[in-house]
């Protein structure tokens, strides 16, 4: 029987699809450099720190680092699906769950800085100079006494995206004695459900307060994108700790998903991040442009136990059972845990 035109076209279509798919598979498996896919929290990416580390690492390694930027919650979810090899995150409580459920291992704390509560320079709720708890109470009182309770006037803007910053914000409300679910449904509270940049922009436009990582805030403030002021900084409750974890390459329940994980390069990159070279890059990043460090390397303070109050803060906030990675979540690499 003679073949119809549409049948011929369909055969060509199927063949072309197969060519596109198979050439991609062949390219990435045989010709491209080895891929190391990193899922990172937005603050490390949006400030440009990770670009610098990537460049420095790729200069001496035959690996192509692919960075996927997402909030901590999404980053851990991608790791759980086996779609990334390394996660860079900043939410100790979520990291703990991640390790306990057996999705990651060999956690190392790599950097710290402080969250900051930013708001309009006129500071209508007068929170400047107060402790975080007092400040949040001032914000709530101010919000509840607004004349406009229709929900159009917002005085607090939240990430609302299950990121590390969002999880910190939730814990701060709880510490200040509020139920987060109730507080977040009050009319003056806005949830953006987006990255730090969007959240800062919304807070700026609405003249509202928000919790921000100091890196993204400084960058946007310096560039003149926002005019918010940092009203509360460098307090123990505002400590922000960044960690790296390798995604487990063998999970008994899900072996097939994870066997494609690039575990060797992941571990090599983790060793690089805690090396003196990378730690120095982290601490020096942005000093010239912003007049202060955006991040501080955490390895040296933790090994030398100096400076003291800070090391204790990190330990009480981001250590699990007195260790940055309890032995049951380690897999070899004793040099990482002296």
């Amino acid at each position: 029987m003679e073949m119809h035109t549409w049948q011929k076209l369909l055969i060509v279509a199927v063949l072309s699809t197969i060519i596109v798919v198979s050439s991609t598979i062949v390219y990435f498996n045989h010709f491209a450099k080895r891929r190391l896919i990193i899922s990172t929290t937005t603050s490390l990416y949006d400030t440009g720190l990770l670009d610098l580390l990537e460049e420095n690492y790729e200069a001496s390694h035959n690996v192509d680092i692919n960075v996927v930027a997402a909030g901590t919650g999404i980053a851990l979810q991608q790791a759980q699906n086996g779609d990334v090899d390394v996660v860079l995150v900043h939410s100790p409580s979520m990291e703990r769950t991640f390790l306990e459920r057996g999705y990651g291992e060999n956690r190392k704390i790599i950097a710290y800085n402080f969250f900051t509560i930013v708001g309009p320079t006129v500071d209508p709720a007068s929170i400047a100079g107060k402790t975080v708890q007092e400040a949040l109470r001032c914000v709530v009182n101010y919000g509840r006494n607004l004349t406009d309770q229709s929900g159009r006037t917002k005085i607090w803007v939240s990430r609302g995206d299950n990121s590390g910053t969002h999880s910190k914000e939730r814990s701060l409300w709880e510490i200040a004695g509020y139920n987060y679910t109730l507080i977040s449904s009050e009319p003056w509270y806005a949830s953006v459900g987006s990255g730090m940049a969007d959240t800062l922009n919304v807070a700026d436009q609405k003249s509202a307060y928000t919790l921000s990582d100091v890196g993204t805030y400084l960058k946007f403030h310096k560039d003149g994108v926002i005019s918010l002021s940092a009203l509360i900084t460098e307090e123990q409750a505002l400590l922000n700790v960044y960690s790296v974890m390798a995604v487990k390459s063998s999970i008994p329940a899900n072996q097939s998903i994870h066997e494609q994980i690039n575990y060797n390069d992941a571990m090599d990159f983790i060793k690089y991040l805690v090396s003196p070279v990378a730690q120095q890059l982290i601490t020096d990043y942005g000093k010239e442009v912003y007049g202060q460090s955006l991040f501080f390397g955490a390895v040296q303070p933790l090994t030398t136990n100096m400076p003291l109050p800070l090391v204790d803060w990190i330990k009480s906030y981001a250590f699990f059972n007195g260790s940055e990675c309890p032995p049951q979540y380690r897999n070899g690499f004793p040099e990482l845990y002296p």
Partner: protein
Amino acid sequence: MVDVLGGIMQALQLIFTGDATLYGIVCRTLLFSGVAVVLATLWGTPVAMVLAFKNFRGKTIVKTFFNSLIGIPTVVLGLFLYLIFSKGGPLGFLGLLYTPAAIILGEALLVTPILISITTNAIEAVDPDVMNLAKTLGASESQASLAVLKEALNGFLLSNIASFNRAIAELGVALLVGGNIVGLTDVLTTAISRYTQRGELDFAIALGLLLMLIVFAINILIIAARRIKLLFEVWRSPQ
């Protein structure tokens, strides 16, 4: 406040100095969208031909199905494809997530309904006598359908241009299955989103201007295609 004018000036500087990162993104975008449209044309045209030429039960339902899929939110398709291409998903073993192929396949799927709908309409609009005449003159089934396709050429081109337009301007699919990886899977829309997030507004504005330029050029092409068709008919009518 944002310095809009300064941003635009810097953006223009980037465009005219031929910044490599900028034009890398443009080339990738054109390549991905282009291949996606070719794929969609290859598998969409046969479906359109069957829909236009053959009569079968439920034909209206199939046509309505494709028509309503035209408006599918890109982010929904992106999520759906992420779940399929993720290592835990049914096609995870192919390792396509966060590769250009994932974006190309995703965008091809995204534009298939537009392509099928416009092409079907174009073929149906061709006078049925063309088919009959060709057959009377001794053309085979295949040759006769080709004759009809030639008559529907303008509609066919329109469907391609509209598909390209949709592919190049979409964000959800490229972001979710491509991962917006610098130098590998970032396209105009996702890169605009990234540079805005990072406060590098000059880059975002430059990319935005180029994207608009491309979209305008495409729409001028559509108008030109219609003009040509008009001229063609004027030229043919005295015969």
